[in-house]
């Protein structure tokens, strides 16, 4: 560690030596990277291309003339499939609502974590816990926590409102709210930790001089903090949005997509089509659609980041 630390300033220099030198043969690089690359090619790249291919075929185990080429029929069919549309609707709501709260609560919690006070270490350790918890355990516990009779949530509400009883997961709207709440419990702390890593780069004397110039805490938040972490936030937002769009564990363990498909996120829908109904072509089409949405959002986000960089 000592060696690494003392070497830091000359890193650029050292790299140059390494790069320019003909000391090491180029094939060694490929030989070293081969196992890692091969793993990714076999488990991700190849199946990914096959998904594209499959999406153009009728591969349904229970229907006739399976295996036939159908062009974009699977994609057209999606938009008259009420189950798919319901999934699409909830995936949209889930992603947008969850991300808004991620950003607002995440920044607030990150500011808390960045405070210099005695509780700092305790707070950071506690904040780390939800991230480390398996979503399946959280989800399955949440299924019981939202139970009307014996659940934790209703019991806690009863401290304030006596005799409160509500079966959250039985009704569509409250089931959706419950799913989003669980998602926030699990991931906002993680988001906050990553925002914190951006906050730590802001030197304290900027705030000091802003204070001398008469800027209050609210003003210095909007004029100093927010602009300085915008780039970091945009990058985080893209990753967290992608994770929301492909969330699976939370609804699998908590609601099984119910009631009446109200909480079946797209990822859950795909898994049902692919592994239960065995509509492989159709499932692939939804998967390709989902990937397309993600790609478009990523491009928009990269564009936004490049705009921030120009400013």
């Amino acid at each position: 560690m000592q060696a690494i630390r003392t070497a830091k300033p000359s890193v650029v220099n050292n790299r140059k030596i390494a790069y320019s030198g003909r000391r090491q043969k180029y094939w060694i690089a490929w030989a070293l990277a081969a196992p890692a690359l091969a793993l990714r090619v076999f488990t991700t790249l190849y199946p990914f291309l096959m998904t594209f291919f499959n999406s153009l075929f009728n591969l349904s185990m229970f229907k006739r003339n399976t295996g036939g080429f159908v062009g974009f029929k699977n994609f057209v069919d999606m938009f008259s499939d009420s189950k798919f549309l319901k999934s699409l609707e909830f995936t949209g709501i889930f992603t947008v609502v969850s991300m808004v709260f991620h950003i607002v609560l995440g920044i607030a919690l990150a500011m808390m974590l960045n405070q210099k006070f005695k509780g700092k270490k305790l707070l950071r350790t506690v904040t780390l816990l939800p991230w480390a918890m398996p979503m399946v355990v959280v989800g399955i516990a949440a299924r019981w926590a939202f139970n009307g009779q014996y659940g934790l949530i209703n019991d806690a509400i009863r401290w304030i409102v006596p005799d409160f009883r509500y079966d959250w997961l039985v009704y569509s709207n409250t089931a959706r709210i419950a799913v989003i709440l669980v998602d926030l419990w699990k991931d906002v702390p993680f988001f906050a930790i990553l925002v914190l890593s951006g906050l730590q780069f802001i030197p304290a004397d900027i705030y000091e001089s802003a204070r001398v110039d008469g800027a209050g805490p609210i003003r210095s938040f909007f004029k100093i903090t927010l602009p300085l972490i915008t780039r970091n936030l945009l990058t985080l937002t893209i990753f967290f949005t992608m994770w929301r769009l492909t969330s699976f564990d939370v609804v699998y363990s908590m609601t099984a997509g119910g009631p009446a498909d109200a909480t079946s996120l797209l990822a859950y829908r795909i898994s049902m089509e692919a592994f239960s109904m065995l509509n492989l072509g159709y499932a692939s089409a939804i998967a390709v659609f989902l990937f397309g949405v993600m790609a478009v959002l990523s491009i928009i986000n990269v564009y936004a980041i490049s705009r921030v960089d120009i400013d």
Partner: protein
Amino acid sequence: MNMAPALQPRRHLARGKVIVGIIRWSLTALICFIILFPLWWIFISSITPASELYTSPIHYLPLNPTFENYARALSDMGIASKVKNTFIITGFALGGSILFGMMAAYAFARFDRKGIKIAYLALLFSSLIPGIVTARTTYDFYRTLGLIDTYPGLIVLYTSALMPFSVLILMNFVQQVPYTIEEAAEVDGANFLQKLFLIILPLMTPAIATIAIINFITCLNDLFTPLFFANRIDVLSVGITTVPRKNTYDVPWDMISTIGCIIILPIIIFVLCFEKKIMEGIMAGGVKQ
């Protein structure tokens, strides 16, 4: 008359500090409550006898704590074999991700040619392809190869999932190891593999520890891979979903909370022990993203 104005603002400041302190500590208490209370509830549920569990209000300090549920989990639920499977798969996946990740990280950090740069970017971007998009085709591909429900098949999937993050972090660290150290080793007659494993690897221990800790948690939390690619090889994360139940709305909470605790207690202890390392790792990854 002269003293008063000087004292006034100071007293004002002191009171401000107290208020800020109160706000800080009450917010801290609120955050801790929101995060810890559900976890506490899972724990006390696991040591509450089933007869008391299905009552309201909830006793947050159990009246008759018992470890009966844990005994049942061991005898009826086959927890031991789930733990064994989880550790076999996680162990190999950790080893594989560190060994192959280290090799790839060295290649990406020390060679500056177009081809290898593109390979590096491709490796990173492949992590953006979501598992659900490739799940079914991977399954079919695996079935052709006879890898479904086998240890090697699962280990390959776990290792592959860990690869992009591991390479990203390890590469940052290799770049910080000065090349002159390698040159000195060469002068002393070290061959390439000796250099990589006897010189670089020991210098990377802190980075490897960080990766191992984070990857360990990732492996334990993985539901997706074992759910779709294993049937007989039962791991803990899937095990909690297969607790026998009467119908879809029935939750055998006594057993589920117990298995939940068996999974999360070690993780909590782990986080308490390695809080600093985990933070470092997450932030290193976060900044680079």
